[in-house]
């Protein structure tokens, strides 16, 4: 048991967790159903929180000069996204009339803490809001199912290994000599998450929900990078602040921008949005007038 809790053993477990992060990124990219994309992302959030917490424990056991509390603050971020992502994406997907903001937030909170509300709350208004959230969820799942464009790209079978290879090659070649193996692997996984997330965002067959999840994958890469690369106390504080700020922007996208966009474009399919978009380079065609 003592051997299991030694820094070396825990480092082995840490490396395994980081590899699982890449596996979940593969799941996010290759799955067709939006519901499964979100589920895979939530699993990744949990894994990342565990990875970060374990990294803090290892630093403690090694007696390295690091502010453990800062690393744990970083672990908090993927947990927030784990809880909030599905309700936020449900809310963003469903087309609905404007409702009072207070009611909207209460339904959202009921969705975030649904597990607790279902089992432990007997407050009628709260349960009513959970019911409203469940209806939203059902409508969202219908919209996700109705999306026509397949997400799986045949070329991903080639692209994914290439992205992974690029990330590992880059990480192992750019790492300074004083980087330990675990730091190199962490950097490699971070770069891989960035590249896979970027690839997700650029896939034309994707919907805007999955595109957003691609950005969130890159967020995870950023969190991991701060944990693995910037593990020195004082600058780490300001980097943690920057991560919180960046997460606030991500929440802004999920809470305000994505729902507004959805209300305007009436479809979550990117190809359909592009086809009907007023933002094209040109072109007022006067041929209609000329032909009449």
């Amino acid at each position: 048991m003592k051997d299991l809790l030694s820094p070396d053993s825990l480092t082995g477990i840490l490396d395994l967790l980081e590899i699982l992060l890449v596996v979940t990124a593969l799941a996010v990219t290759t799955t067709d159903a939006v519901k499964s994309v979100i589920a895979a992302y939530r699993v990744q959030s949990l894994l990342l929180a565990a990875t970060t917490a374990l990294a803090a424990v290892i630093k403690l056991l090694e007696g390295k000069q690091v502010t453990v509390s800062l690393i744990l603050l970083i672990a908090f971020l993927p947990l927030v996204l784990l809880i909030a992502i599905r309700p936020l994406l449900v809310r963003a997907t469903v087309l609905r009339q404007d409702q009072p903001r207070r009611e909207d937030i209460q339904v959202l909170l009921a969705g975030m803490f649904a597990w607790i509300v279902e089992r432990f709350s007997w407050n009628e208004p709260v349960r009513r809001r959970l019911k409203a959230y469940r209806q939203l969820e059902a409508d969202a799942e219908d919209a996700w199912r109705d999306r026509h464009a397949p997400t799986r790209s045949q070329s991903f079978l080639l692209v994914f290994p290439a992205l992974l290879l690029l990330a590992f090659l880059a990480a192992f070649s750019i790492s300074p000599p004083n980087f330990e193996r675990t730091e190199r692997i962490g950097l490699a996984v971070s770069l891989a998450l960035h590249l896979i997330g970027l690839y997700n965002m650029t896939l034309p067959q994707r919907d805007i929900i999955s595109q957003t999840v691609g950005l969130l994958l890159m967020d995870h890469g950023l969190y991991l990078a701060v944990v693995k690369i910037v593990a020195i106390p004082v600058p780490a504080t300001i980097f943690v602040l920057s991560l919180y700020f960046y997460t606030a922007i991500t929440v802004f996208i999920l809470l305000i921008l994505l729902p507004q966009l959805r209300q305007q474009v009436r479809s979550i399919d990117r190809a359909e949005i592009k086809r009907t978009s007023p933002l094209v380079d040109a072109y007022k065609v006067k041929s209609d007038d000329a032909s009449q």
Partner: protein
Amino acid sequence: MTLPNDVIVKLILADLASPLIVVLFAVGAYLFRPRSRGRAARWLDWLTFAASLLCLLIAAALAWAPPAQEIPPASISILGVVKVDLLIDALSVYFILLVNLVAFAASCAVLTSPPEAERAHLFDGLVNLFHFTMLLVAVVNNLVVLWIAIEATTLVSTLLVSWRGDRAAWEAAWKYLLVTSTGIIFALLGTMFLANAAKDLLNLLPATEQDQVMNFTFLRDHITRLSPDFVRLSFLFVVVGYGTKAGFAPMHTWLPDGHAEAPAPISVLLSGVLLKSALYAILRFATLTNTALGNSQFTSAVLLAVGIFSLVAATPFILNEKNTRFKRVLAYHSLEHMGIITFGVAIGGDLALFGALLHTLNHAVTKSLMFLSFAKVMERFKSIKVFEQADITGVFKRMPVTGGILAVGGLALVGTPPFNIFLSEFVILSGAFKNLKAGATNLPAWLVVMAIVVFMISTTLIFYGLVRHLARLLLMPHEREETRPAVGATAISAPVRLEPRPRELVPLMGLLVLVVALGVSIWQPLARLIQLSVQTLMLR
């Protein structure tokens, strides 16, 4: 003449505080909205104008007597909890001047446009917050706080891009935030690499001051101790990251939509200063990288590639005559001019750097003039039920004064003498030729010559492209005008004059005077400020 350091710091703080005070008033207007509904519209606009005028006067005072060297470290404490170290040197003063000048032009435009009425508090609050965040970018010392400040500009400006609230605006805002957020991740990674390399420098700082390890001034003085490879890597990531925000190709995809769909004062701020704020960050990192490597070959090579690529990428879009939305054409000109500025920075040397920095000002002024003039045209054409940009033609007949301003501004934008942009482009090219003649180029001579050739071909094509767009906009008869009298009719009906009131043209005239004046000569105080900024960049 130089102001005492404590006076400079107080002026900077007053400059930062002015827009924030208006934000507080805007919050108050929101909280007391039922009572001030309707009336908030104009008094907040006037307050914004007053604050921006004060900021401009402060910036002018600082520019008149800039610090010859960076002033000793100063810091501000936010709520007694967070300490932000300030960096005040000639370069930051120059960018403060730029931000305040364009913000003033934008506030004048807000004042001479129809009021926002119900949402004035939100609009003015956001505009002033935007102003504040851009000023913050120019004065922070810590590179991570710099990143936070730039990201803050993104967040605030997204809400402003989406202001109109229709589909196009929300799509543009979505694209803007998604693309720039993706890019800015790379900037943070680049900063992180530098932080990791800098951990070896921690022992140079007392325990209570170790938060200064990521300060620009500290890194600049000690960066030669860091691994050159890591510094190069950091710079590459930073160019990709901040370059996305600066609108460099191929990360510029948000730019045409964002600038075109935003309200005109916001387009002015986006094009005039937001792009330059991101460039400012790149310039600071370039200084660090050049110091670490002992020469500027690496940064010059990277920036030359980026600059020329941006310039070339803009050309086909401007040449495309089917691109009938003039605001999008103007947005592509931003891509072109950012490419020109970066080209000048890449060429290096006193003269080219001077030209590049001068070009940041000249582009900001000229682009402001173009966006605001065209906004007036759009506003007036709406009164005759012409809502699409593509349908706006024959502006000269209906709005001869505004049309004339557009024509002059357009010619200035494409580098026609004797206007300002011609002068700064001429100085950049002179710097390039001077370096070639002296054999003092950072890069191989053949590469510089090729870049100059590409520069001249692209700018010539762009000249042709914009002149064609302007001809269509200003001279092509509007479809509502009868070019021939109908059978039995006795006269051609004259087009309705749409010229705005003279007071609405005052901001445009002011900008026009600047466009001409800056083309004829560069005022001594401004020239001195830019020279000091160049010395700051070259670490003299």
